[in-house]
């Protein structure tokens, strides 16, 4: 499935698509307010970007230091070259502990590795404990947004699924009522789980600790009640020093939701007496991305989701239209690095307006990388219909006469052109767009009449 066809699907429900657009823009505005409260915001972004550049340039050294310090703290460190190995490591720990049911807080890495279906195939019940993730899990869906997993759903949908799964009152759509029903349901799961899985927001080689941020407290409820904590992280999650957390924690929540900080920012350095912490360091294509000079700084991403909230395409096409674990602008530069064929349409799902790069807290040049991926993909694919029209445009812009004539032609034909020419399957751009109103004359003609 390509992005345009999936986006068309999303846009069928016009009202809902409009709501989605407005809601994410509201989150973007909250981010703006939160960032403008801090005079040194731009300096923080520069620092975060610089720190991440530094980390990536000596990632091997930091990974070894992290392993050494974490091990000394009593954390068991594992290395996984790919998703398969990651999943097998998790399963082997569960088997050793004879554990058949786990609770899991939000981890985009485990989504990327498809851990849930793998464990379920092996008879393990996985309960996602973030409210949004639990909702989409009930519906057998992946998250549609990395920070707001159920943002594509309305409270009516959630009321219905909770009525079916949690026996809440039919038709009661009150978010407070529904949230508290989930609280009770998940508390029972927390009480019973022997093993809890979490993601990792930041890992600190200096101290051998890692940090997990949530608003709900679900990661902490899971790990502090269970005997075993398994934390899964991509190898790029490192920041060198504890003091660097000051920068990143100030940036993360403000960029993600407009809060001044996430509610719970938990620093795990060694297990509580009698308990275990496992930390799995996962590559799964990251070292390949690091080797790509043009694309390597996509690994600086701290998964705040700000680029999604601001993106005019994401807001109007929904997370599922991307078909990748990480959707939106950042996903569109990460995913082709994993499978360029499968995700070939994603770098084109952008207006290249650059808003994503403007809001990125670690200053990834997202829109420039989208453009670079287009070059790579077009080279690899050769002729395409869109490429053809681009070549025609290129010819027109090269010749002043051709440009003048084609402008006149366009102005007269746009008025009479049947919609079918624009809204046909060959022109994916024309979908859900209206033709512009046509001016009577060109700017050049107007200028000659009025100013010369």
């Amino acid at each position, binding site marked *: 499935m390509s992005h345009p066809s999936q986006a068309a699907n999303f846009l069928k429900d016009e009202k809902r698509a409009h709501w989605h657009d407005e809601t994410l823009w509201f989150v973007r505005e909250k981010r703006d307010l939160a960032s403008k409260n801090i005079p040194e915001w731009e300096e923080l972004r520069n620092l975060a970007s610089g720190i991440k550049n530094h980390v990536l*340039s000596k990632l091997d050294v930091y990974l070894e230091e992290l392993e050494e310090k974490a091990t000394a703290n009593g954390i068991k460190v594992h*290395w996984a070259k790919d998703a398969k190995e990651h999943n097998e490591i998790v399963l082997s720990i569960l088997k050793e502990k004879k554990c058949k049911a786990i609770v899991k807080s939000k981890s985009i890495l485990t989504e990327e590795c498809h851990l849930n279906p793998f464990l379920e195939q092996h008879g393990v019940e996985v309960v996602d404990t973030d409210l949004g993730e639990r909702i989409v899990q009930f519906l057998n869906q992946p998250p549609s947004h990395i920070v707001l997993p159920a943002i594509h759903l309305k409270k009516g949908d959630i009321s219905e699924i909770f009525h079916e799964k949690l026996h809440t009152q039919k038709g009661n759509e009150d978010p407070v009522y529904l949230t508290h029903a989930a609280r009770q349901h998940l508390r029972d799961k927390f*009480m019973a789980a022997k093993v809890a899985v979490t993601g990792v927001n930041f890992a600190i080689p200096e101290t051998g600790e890692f940090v997990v941020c949530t*608003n*709900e407290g679900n990661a902490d409820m899971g790990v502090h009640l269970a005997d075993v904590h398994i934390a899964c992280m991509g190898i790029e999650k490192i920041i060198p020093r504890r003091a660097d957390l000051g920068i990143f924690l*100030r940036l993360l929540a403000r960029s993600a*939701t407009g809060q001044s*900080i996430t509610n*719970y920012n938990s620093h795990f350095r060694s297990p509580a007496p009698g308990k275990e912490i496992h930390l799995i360091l996962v*590559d799964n294509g990251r070292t390949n991305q690091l080797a790509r000079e043009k694309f390597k700084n996509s690994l600086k991403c701290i998964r705040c989701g700000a680029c999604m909230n601001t993106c005019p395409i994401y807001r109007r096409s929904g997370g599922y239209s991307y078909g990748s674990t990480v959707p939106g602008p950042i996903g569109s530069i990460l995913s082709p690095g994993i499978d360029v064929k499968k995700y070939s349409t994603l770098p084109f799902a952008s207006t290249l307006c650059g808003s994503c790069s403007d809001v990125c807290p670690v200053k990834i040049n997202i829109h420039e990388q989208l453009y670079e991926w287009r070059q790579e993909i077009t080279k690899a694919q050769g002729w395409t219909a869109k490429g053809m029209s681009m070549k025609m445009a290129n010819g027109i812009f090269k010749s002043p006469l051709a440009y003048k004539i084609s402008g006149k032609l366009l102005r007269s034909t746009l008025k009479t052109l049947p919609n079918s020419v624009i809204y046909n399957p060959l022109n994916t751009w024309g979908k859900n767009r209206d033709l512009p109103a046509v001016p009577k004359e060109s700017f050049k003609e107007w200028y000659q009449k009025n100013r010369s």
Partner: protein
Amino acid sequence: MVSKKQIMSSKELILSSIKKLSQEEQPLPAVPSFDESENTLETFQQSVKNNKGTIISELELVDLVNSGAYPKVYSGSRLIPDLKTFELPEKGTDLNDLDLAIIDGQLGVAENAAIWLEDENLGLRAVPFITQHLVIVLEKSKLVGNMHEAYSLIGSHYSGFGVFIAGPSKTADIEQSLVIGAHGAKSLRVVLV
């Protein structure tokens, strides 16, 4: 069980594929403090409110504990001694019926109301999360302006677990409507002494 040999080989594979890129080391920026220590008390109080927490007095806390509204109360506070409490059990799961927990924080951050707690403050790590309602007692003299100042005070002091708590548990996963009390404490009260 994954064999030891396989684990080693993945580690070597990952490290060697990074090493062979022979990247030029980029400089590590120093972290400035962005000192903003003015009006930390007022800013902190406002930040607590913004995060849907409340500030109460020591007297109000004593009344709250004695009101009987919270049948099961745990206090680990040394800053306000002699509050009603009980001996913590061995396992966090035995605290599922805990109504109110009172613990001391180490420092508070004015810009976002984040309060730093370590193992020695918590007793059991589950306490501030599993309790229905949470009270954190904090010395006014332990307020700092921002996160940079906070980390420079915390330093690398060893605690197996440390956490910044900034408010009651919350979620906006249903249509972006803010709901307090997702999984953790349904309320946070801060007592400044």
